[in-house]
């Protein structure tokens, strides 16, 4: 455990000296928390409550019965942005983990590190935690800012309770960490197999594509996220996480990594 803690400390000390990573960890959650709040604020007021326009059935389907049409529209738009909010647990680890192995290769620090009595499991666990913890904290803090902000802006009521309902809480507190684990291990897998940090980051960023598909799918009206879909998503993520953790350990071949340096 002490070795894992040492790796985490080392990774954080290194990573957070990089301003780009620091910017991503702080700015991205802040931006994705504040943006839906701005939308809520700008759509708020009497016009919302008096609106009675007919909404597409798909949108009405996700609204609570005690919502006005305006609140329903607000909820739809903000919940679409909440999907983008899930970018945080995917994107932050890409920035941290993609560099973790290939960075050590390019600076030649991997060989002395692997020469210590640390096991592959301990090393990868340390690198995992060093990326997953900041991603989860950033996601939860960002959502906290959004939750407090939405309560203030909407003054509580039907809209606030819809935005803070179990579906979104499941998404943030369960799917978020699962996504972070997926992203970290995918990035470590990529990082172990390439020789250039830029290539590692670019390839690792592929992990956000499924989320973008969900985002555009909802906008296109192909489906509307609901509790069932979120739970199915969590289940799939859990299975995929187990697979990528297994693959990350299998693909982390000390000998191949050391002898294929170019």
């Amino acid at each position, binding site marked *: 455990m*002490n*070795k894992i*803690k*040492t790796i985490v*400390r*080392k990774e954080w*000390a*290194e990573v957070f*000296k990089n301003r780009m990573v620091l910017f991503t960890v702080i700015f991205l959650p802040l931006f994705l928390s504040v943006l839906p709040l701005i939308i809520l604020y700008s759509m708020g007021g009497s016009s919302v409550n008096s609106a009675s326009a007919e909404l597409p059935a798909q949108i009405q389907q996700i609204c609570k019965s005690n919502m006005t049409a305006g609140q329903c529209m607000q909820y739809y738009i903000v919940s679409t942005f909440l999907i983008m909010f899930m970018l945080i647990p995917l994107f932050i680890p890409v920035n941290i983990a993609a560099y973790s192995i290939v960075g050590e290769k390019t*600076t*030649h*620090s*991997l*060989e*002395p*590190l*692997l*020469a*210590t*009595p*640390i*096991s592959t499991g301990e090393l990868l666990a340390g690198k995992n935690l060093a990326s997953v913890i900041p991603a989860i904290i950033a996601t939860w803090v960002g959502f906290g800012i959004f939750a407090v902000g939405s309560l203030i802006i909407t003054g509580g009521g039907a809209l606030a309770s819809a935005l803070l309902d179990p579906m979104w809480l499941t998404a943030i507190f369960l799917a978020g960490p699962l996504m972070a684990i997926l992203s970290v291990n995918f990035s470590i897998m990529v990082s172990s197999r390439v020789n250039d940090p830029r290539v590692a980051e670019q390839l690792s960023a592929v992990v956000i594509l499924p989320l973008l598909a969900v985002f555009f799918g909802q906008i296109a009206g192909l489906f509307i996220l609901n509790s069932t879909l979120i739970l199915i998503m969590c289940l799939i993520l859990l299975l995929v996480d187990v697979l990528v953790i297994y693959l990350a350990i299998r693909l982390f071949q*000390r*000998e191949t990594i*050391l*002898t294929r340096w170019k």
Partner: protein
Amino acid sequence: MIKTENLSKKFNTTLAVDNLNLEVQEGEVFGFLGPNGAGKTTTVRILTSLIGPTSGTAVVNGFRIGEQDTNIRRSVGILTETPGMYDNLSAEFNLEIYANLYEVKDPKGQVEKYLRMLGLWDRRQDAAGTFSKGMKQKLAIARALLHEPRILFLDEPTAALDPEASHLVHDFIGELRKEGRTIFLCTHNLDEADRLCDRVGVFKTHLLVVNTPANLRSQLFGRRVVFHLVNSTESIASAIRALPFVREAKVIDNKLLVNLDDPETHNPEIIRVLVGAGAEIQFVGELRHSLEDVYLQLVKNA
């Protein structure tokens, strides 16, 4: 301390190490010499359990590679070819990381001990990236010693260092030798090997020869004695060549160079013959072949 038996390593179709049989004794400084790409670093990586052999076995500090790898890593220190420090982190933090990974009992104490010993204590808070090559190398040596290994693998410890930094590293290796540590030194620097090593092995995929530097010189070239004469002539050289124990004799300027195996025994006889032939001897000395001569000869013949 280190024993290999038919140790081989193949990368796809390339044979990097071929049937290496080697024994390094406790407290010995062993020089592992060879050209670039000879397989020296691969050998070090196998012996430090970083990579596995394709065939053969090795026992390092009583632990068998491939079976007790963690024990091997715990009991040896390695200075890799490139220091590979974390440049953004302070020298002290760099060492603390490794002290923890090596499960050192008093990490802070050990870090302080080696930073002071290598003259880096005053710069402990500075980022390793701000260090000169020599300082980084010293920091990497400190890292290799934190857990007090009895066996130390040094891969090109003075490569790319200026003479002053090299001198410091040489002195430090000398200190480690006095402490009785076993040192496996990979180097291109033949003067370094000559000065520091008890025995050297010349390696080019397979081991060409192992011996002390002095014995290697003697085996390959015999010993060479130079006689400074007032007037050297070819007839004098011929008289010397006729002696049965002389391997070779030649005249260069007014110097007569004689190759023979045992100068202590045969020099008086040579001097008698020279005086008898009318030569006037100014002085006599031994001309040492450098280890470089030995190395080049061996590698050329390999």
